[in-house]
């Protein structure tokens, strides 16, 4: 059992001079896409560049565009793709370092820009904050916190390309989890920061990020909730 694999190759920082190389790769029942590119690098073409680390779906470094959709390759079995051929490309909207390895700096720069770190209201307190598991706050935050920063959503979002300053789904989703957290003290600052076309209002609800998130997170849900919080925040500021 084997499969034909087409890989987009590119040696520079621009993707203007690219080509597709084709390989025949043997498969086992549970082969995943990362096994396939590993096989190519180990046996067919040692110059193939790509990035991975944990192989367990935790680190979020092995994301690639496979058959037209951004995926975490370590957890995407070839069988599940139901295709006789694999086309593997680097994640879109990122500068390419080489072949399938992309520069994640634009993603993490934006992530840092929204103050993605937790800023405690009571940094010296020895008491644990008591937030009930069934509280609205917990129910708002819980579905949004499992992000592994794989960058699939940023690569799939059209607005990232058409609106150059747009912060992207992952960064806004992270900001939302902190804004909704009653223990955090930088919420207002983040609300001010995201009240712009580059922030929450830049999202056109295309749901591309939601469709590709390997963790099943819906950044669109966070962004929509954030838009409502922005309206409340603006009213509060206006009347205060």
């Amino acid at each position: 059992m084997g499969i034909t694999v087409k890989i987009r190759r590119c040696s520079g920082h621009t993707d203007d001079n690219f080509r597709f190389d084709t390989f025949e790769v043997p498969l086992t029942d549970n082969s995943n896409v990362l096994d396939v590119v590993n096989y190519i690098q180990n046996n067919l073409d040692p110059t193939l560049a790509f990035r991975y680390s944990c192989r367990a779906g935790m680190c979020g470094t092995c994301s690639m565009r496979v058959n037209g959709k951004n995926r975490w390759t370590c957890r995407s079995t070839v069988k599940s793709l139901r295709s006789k051929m694999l086309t593997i490309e680097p994640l879109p909207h990122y500068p390419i370092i080489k072949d399938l390895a992309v520069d994640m700096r634009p993603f993490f720069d934006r992530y840092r820009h929204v103050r993605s770190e937790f800023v405690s209201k009571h940094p010296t307190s020895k008491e644990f904050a008591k937030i009930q598991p069934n509280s609205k706050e917990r129910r708002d935050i819980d579905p949004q916190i499992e992000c592994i920063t794989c960058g699939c959503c940023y690569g799939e979002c059209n607005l990232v390309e058409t609106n150059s300053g747009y912060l992207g789904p992952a960064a806004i989703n992270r900001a939302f989890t902190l804004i909704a957290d009653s223990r955090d003290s930088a919420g207002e600052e983040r609300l001010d920061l995201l009240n712009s076309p580059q922030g929450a209002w830049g999202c056109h609800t295309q749901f591309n990020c939601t469709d590709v998130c390997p963790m099943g997170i819906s950044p669109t849900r966070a962004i929509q909730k954030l838009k409502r919080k922005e309206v409340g925040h603006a009213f509060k500021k206006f009347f205060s």
Partner: protein
Amino acid sequence: MSFIRNFQRLFLSQKSVGNVSWLLHRVTGVALAIYLLPHFISIHSSQLGQQMFDQELNVYTTPFFKFAEFILVLTVAFHMFNGLRIIALDCFNLVGHQKLLFGLALFCCTAVLISASFLFVPQILLSSP
């Protein structure tokens, strides 16, 4: 060429529900904006006298314009129902049901299509030369 290639890559290569709805909403919106110009000109002719207005309206009784009117009704229907879907997504916690809402919008458009067919198809056929 690069504009067409980029447009194809960005907006036509992803066939997700959200992307299709976004694209159709823009296309119908632009179409309606373009329609408004001749619409205003026609309405303005009513200020130039009854004869002028009747003459203007007679143009729209041809099969081509009857068909165009039929398409206009569908365009308005999609833009309205999808607009309501977008408002629902913005104002309420319905993001998890966006595909269902798009299905509902299409269902309502189909209802309008069938109803409008009863009105417009005989008119188009009867006004054929």
